[in-house]
């Protein structure tokens, strides 16, 4: 790595930290909403009534949560104060839990 002349840093900007935290929360929200839809026909019907298909509404909700939380965490600087290794660990952990949560739910519930 040729960075001998560049100033070293180990801190994330507010935007990166904010959107990493937002992504971690969004992937967990995504799995929780999938569980809720599968368990509740009225919720699925309501989400279908909003856009014509529950999957479309689900995707739009995920994007809104990700963008909304990302902007909120960036402006507030909350995530920027967190340790970067903990943020990365939270994201990886959230993705593993969310993915396994989906597969196990649809395999056994």
């Amino acid at each position: 790595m040729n960075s001998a002349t560049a100033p070293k840093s180990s801190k994330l900007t507010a935007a990166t930290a904010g959107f990493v935290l937002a992504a971690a929360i969004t992937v967990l929200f995504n799995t929780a909403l999938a569980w809720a839809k599968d368990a509740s026909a009225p919720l699925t019907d309501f989400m279908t009534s909003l856009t014509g298909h529950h999957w479309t509404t689900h995707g739009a909700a995920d994007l809104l949560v990700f963008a909304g939380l990302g902007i909120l965490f960036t402006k507030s600087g909350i995530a920027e104060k967190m340790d970067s290794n903990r943020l990365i660990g939270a994201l990886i952990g959230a993705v593993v839990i969310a993915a396994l949560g989906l597969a196990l739910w649809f395999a056994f519930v």
Partner: protein
Amino acid sequence: MNISVSDVVLLAHAAFGVTGCLAALWVFVETINAQPGNATRIRTAALVTAVCMAAAWICGGYWYVQFYPPEKVLILKGPWPFAHNLFMETKEHLFFITGILAFLLPVATREQLSSNAAARKVVLSVAALVVVTGLVVEGAGAVINHGVKIALLRGDSKAQ
């Protein structure tokens, strides 16, 4: 030759997904050796990842809503109902995770990666997660496709 809109949209969905995975792999490899000189390439590859995954999302969503219902009926009546009950149900929601991670990549690559170890870790982690979840989604698509195929083949063999 008879190529329907359904065929084009479905194949475009898979092609954009694979291209997005390859672009994320490109981000990963360039970031291992991050220097001021390859910062533009990393940001370009991250943008390609996000655009491809957005295109895969739109194509896949359109196909799922417009064309999948009759195939779902076939799968559920066939010998592999789990191709829908487990693989499609998981895939259609797991893909959102891949998409969100792909949209995170262009944000994270705005950092000065050559001089920021924490930012490099973020980009490497997110790019790797896009590749792994993207390949799982691609594999699930193959199982779903096979579920339809064997439902049709075994249905035909019963009729003969």
